[in-house]
């Protein structure tokens, strides 16, 4: 999800990141609160169109949809059978209800619509730019820094994790269901925590050595163009339109 795509000739790349963030924020709220199929399907349809016009490769879209839909498959296995209502079909001892199926379908569509919109925004914007755009929009500096550092060091920590895992493997470690395995994994997690905390200390030291005084400066120059305003205006109208379908 957070891996950046390079969409050089896509119009998505050129939109001011602040505009994109405002749109995705409002859109997600309205989507999360909507239940009518007319609203949900319209939203899903428009999101797909935006991605198509934005020339986002289909492969990338599907790759990013896998995690959320794995979760949704799990929901389909549980939710239809656990909501009370008129029975639709039977599966062994379990009865699926109409209300349950509808509820699960609503969740499936709305989460996919939100993820598609997020792909359109995140995939077309560099993470650092998103951070600075969030800052410009008034998100507290500390949260923005947390976001940026998480992105930067998650790779380092992941590499450290792989190193430790390999160190265990080359000495013949095989995970089994026993105390030895649990203990070893506990050591692994503990080691990662200690290493990450040490790393954080060293990074901070390195920043102090380069005159860090708590302030981040951005090299990005954001400027809203007429095109950005047009996109912001039309997308907000679209979101309001969704709200009208839902609540009017």
């Amino acid at each position, binding site marked *: 999800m957070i891996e950046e795509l390079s969409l050089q000739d896509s119009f998505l790349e050129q939109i001011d990141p602040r505009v994109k963030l405002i749109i995705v924020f409002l859109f997600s709220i309205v989507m999360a609160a909507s239940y009518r199929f007319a609203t949900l399907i319209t939203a899903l349809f428009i999101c797909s169109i935006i991605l198509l016009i934005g020339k986002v490769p289909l492969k990338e879209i599907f790759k990013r949809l896998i995690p959320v839909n794995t979760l949704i498959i799990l929901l389909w296995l549980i939710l239809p059978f656990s909501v009370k209502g008129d029975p639709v079909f039977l599966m062994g001892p379990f009865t699926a209800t109409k209300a349950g199926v509808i509820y699960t379908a609503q969740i499936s569509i709305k989460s996919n619509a939100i993820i598609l919109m997020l792909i359109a925004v995140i995939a077309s914007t*560099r*993470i*650092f730019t998103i951070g600075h755009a969030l800052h410009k929009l008034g998100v507290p500096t500390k949260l923005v820094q947390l976001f*940026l*550092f998480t*992105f*930067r*060091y998650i*790779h*380092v920590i992941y590499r450290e994790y792989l190193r430790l895992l390999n160190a265990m493997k080359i000495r013949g470690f095989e995970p089994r269901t026993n105390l030895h395995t649990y203990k070893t994994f506990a050591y692994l997690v503990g080691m990662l925590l200690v290493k990450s905390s040490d*790393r954080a200390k*060293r*990074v901070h*030291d*390195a*920043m*102090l*050595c*380069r*005159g*860090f*005084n708590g*302030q981040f*400066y951005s*090299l990005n*120059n954001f400027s809203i163009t007429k095109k950005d305003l047009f996109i912001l205006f039309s997308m907000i109208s679209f979101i309001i339109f969704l709200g009208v379908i839902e609540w009017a």
Partner: protein
Amino acid sequence: MNKLVINISNICYSYPGGKKVLDNLDLELFKGQKLGLVGPNGGGKTTLFYIIMGLLKPSSGSIEIFGQPVVNEKDFKKIRQKIGFLFQDSDDQLFSPTVLEDVAFGPLNLGKSKNEAIKTAQKTLEFLGLSGFEDRVTYKLSGGEKRLVSLATVLAMEPEILLLDEPTTGLDDTTRTRIMDLLTKLPITMIIISHEINFIEKTTDSIINLKNGKLLTDKEFYIHEHIHTHPYGSYPHRHVK
């Protein structure tokens, strides 16, 4: 006699609950001097750098930098702008997503404008032969590239003194030679920690050994034997020296 830029006297430091790593240590560094610092692992070489930068506080002793005593965080903040410190692990040093942002971080902190900072960053990258690296993602660089970019982040602050902590550890011959050439070319006062005696011999003009918390000064290099591999196998080749 050149100007005394770092004057450390009677510094003691021990890790919490641990042994004494620095024991009444004295060190004088003069302007233009290039000093090699060797010594066993865990001998306190990095600790000494941390103390000079004010990242660790010694239990006793005094530090004077550029003729001024440095005591509290405020003093150290000022001197950090003039001393560049290259960390052992480049991942500690590079935290911005792209190279240009990371190299411009120091100059921006020094109060330069955005355009000036970008200009300085580009100039430094060019000096290090890293033109075209501006938009590269820092965590995707190779080990050697990371080290060179780290050096760029430090040099972009235009320091008067450089503290380099094992600048060539884990690097291939080409990158090592590149760093060696750069360091010989730079007219900056520096202290270099290294375990590679050939490297340190070529880049510095005197070597000191930190052992048991004390500095042992070597005014001259010892003649020594060294073992080397023949990368070209049995093909005829010349020995450079």
